[in-house]
């Protein structure tokens, strides 16, 4: 590559970088700054230092929303990782109509979240919903599904798992396709059983891909808004109010710009902390193999 190219290539990248900085990164500075103000849209802003943060530390509704977010995220990451890895093993095999069936399996992650959330809402309906009918067929008493405070989060996790297991499958499938064949031949010659081969050869080699999927899944689970907003709006009561829902309420129903900016800062710190944890875990896994 010639020297002048470097500068010209940077010019190629400039518009995209500027747009991202303007639309995503600039608001960051603004948010950090606004979090130091007491400002409701329509009234004057007062500088109050860290009072918004101090207020949040004793706001039980906010603290519970963090707990719910963590519970939701743990379930919505763990379950798709296990299911998606098995799905990848299945779709890695050769069978008729594989392309078509794999495409059908990925439909949930491509479909419009609002649309499928509406269908799930109807399926969850305690009286006319199809899910309670299916339960009755196998002799299980009807459930209140999302109308029960205790079940709201698990039901939303169910929708999320249904929607995003295909993404994990795709990432792990990409990993499976890239594995070398030598270790499998060696394992076979050594007389390893299928389970032993999977447990001691396939799985360790797949771990880096599973962890990549875990990072993507975690970031997306923390961001989940559409399905929760459409299906429960954070209810019943506040039973499924995650940080995103709490934030939406504070920002766009109560117009508390200062307070919600502080929530954003705390939220983002949480996202970064969890991402670093997973990156650290990934390094350790790579080290051991």
């Amino acid at each position, binding site marked *: 590559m010639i020297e002048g190219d470097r500068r010209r290539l940077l010019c190629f990248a400039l518009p995209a970088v500027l747009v991202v900085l303007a639309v995503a990164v600039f608001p960051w500075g603004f948010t950090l700054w606004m979090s130091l103000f007491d400002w409701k849209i329509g009234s004057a802003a007062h500088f109050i230092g860290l009072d918004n943060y101090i207020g949040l530390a004793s706001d039980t509704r906010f603290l519970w929303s963090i707990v719910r977010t963590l519970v939701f995220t743990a379930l919505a990451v763990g379950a798709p990782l296990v299911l998606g890895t098995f799905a990848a093993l299945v779709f890695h095999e050769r069978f008729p109509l594989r392309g078509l069936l794999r495409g059908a399996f990925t439909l949930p992650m491509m479909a419009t979240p609002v649309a499928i959330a509406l269908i799930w809402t*109807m399926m969850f309906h305690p009286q006319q919903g199809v899910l309670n009918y299916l339960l009755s067929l196998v002799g299980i008493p009807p459930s209140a599904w999302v109308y029960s405070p205790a079940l709201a989060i698990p039901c939303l996790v169910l929708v999320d798992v249904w929607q995003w297991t295909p993404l994990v499958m795709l990432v792990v499938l990409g990993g499976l396709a890239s594995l070398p064949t030598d270790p499998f031949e060696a394992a076979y010659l050594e007389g390893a059983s299928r389970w032993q081969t999977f447990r001691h050869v396939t799985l360790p080699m797949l771990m880096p891909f599973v962890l990549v999927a875990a990072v993507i899944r975690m970031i997306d689970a923390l961001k989940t808004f559409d399905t929760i907003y459409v299906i429960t709006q954070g209810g019943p009561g506040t039973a499924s109010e995650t940080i995103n829902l709490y934030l939406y309420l504070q920002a766009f129903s109560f117009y508390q710009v200062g307070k919600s900016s502080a929530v*954003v800062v705390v939220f983002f710190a949480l996202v970064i902390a969890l991402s670093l944890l997973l990156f650290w875990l990934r390094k350790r896994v790579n080290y051991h193999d």
Partner: protein
Amino acid sequence: MIDRPSTPARHWVDRGVLAVGVLIFVAPAVSVFLWMLSLAFKNEVDNLAYPPVFIPTAPTLANFTAVFRENNFLLYFWNSIVVTGVSTLVALLIGVPAGYAIARLKAKKLLLVILVARMTPAISFLIPLFTLFQALGLTGSLLPVVITHLVITVPIVVYVVSGYFETLPPELEEAALVDGCSLWQRFRFVALPLARPGVTVAAILAFIFSWNNFIFGAVLAGRTTRTLPVAVYNVLTFEQVAWGPLAAAALLVTLPVLVLTMLVQKEIVGGLTAGGVKGG
């Protein structure tokens, strides 16, 4: 992986286990969409029946005509086309050269800056942007929605396209350089035509995730600037509609995406496995 030699009996057991596995994963994915179809084409009597009617006794298009009659659905459809179309086109215009530059410069840090937009929860940059657009008096137009959708489309395009450019052999561009081609000519006439499949996948993914987005429109759009997902949600909450029209509306919103996914599923699978990209 290797094919183990096996007896015929073992072979058929394996195929059976595999078939069950495929069924376990594909059936739940598909059945929700089948139920959507069923709800959308049933009349109100069938939709309220218990036990539920699975296959419509008298299939009807009444739900769809109701959607178009009672709502300004065509306007919202047009809004979605404009928002998704413009934000995808702009993303291609600025994202493809950027992806090329990142691939050739091996600028992983630059890529990371662009991917931060994908990691950040949408609501967090909506608060400052909402106040900004309000101060500028733009909240009644489609412009704020288009601008925010760039947060979805630009990172997808840059990420997918830069990954694709990286796989192209450098020899062709080097030959063009020897022939005296400028950087722009090498990009425009050598690299870009070769990267067309990658650009297509990027465009499709950007289109789908912009089309699907709900929250930007929900916050920034007014009555006449709603995109389809926002409009469908409002159908649910503000007018107590029956299930049939609601399912029909949901089907209309997501049908373009589902058709696109099935048509180019192979390419999409390739593009997604390359990076695991998702918008919103």
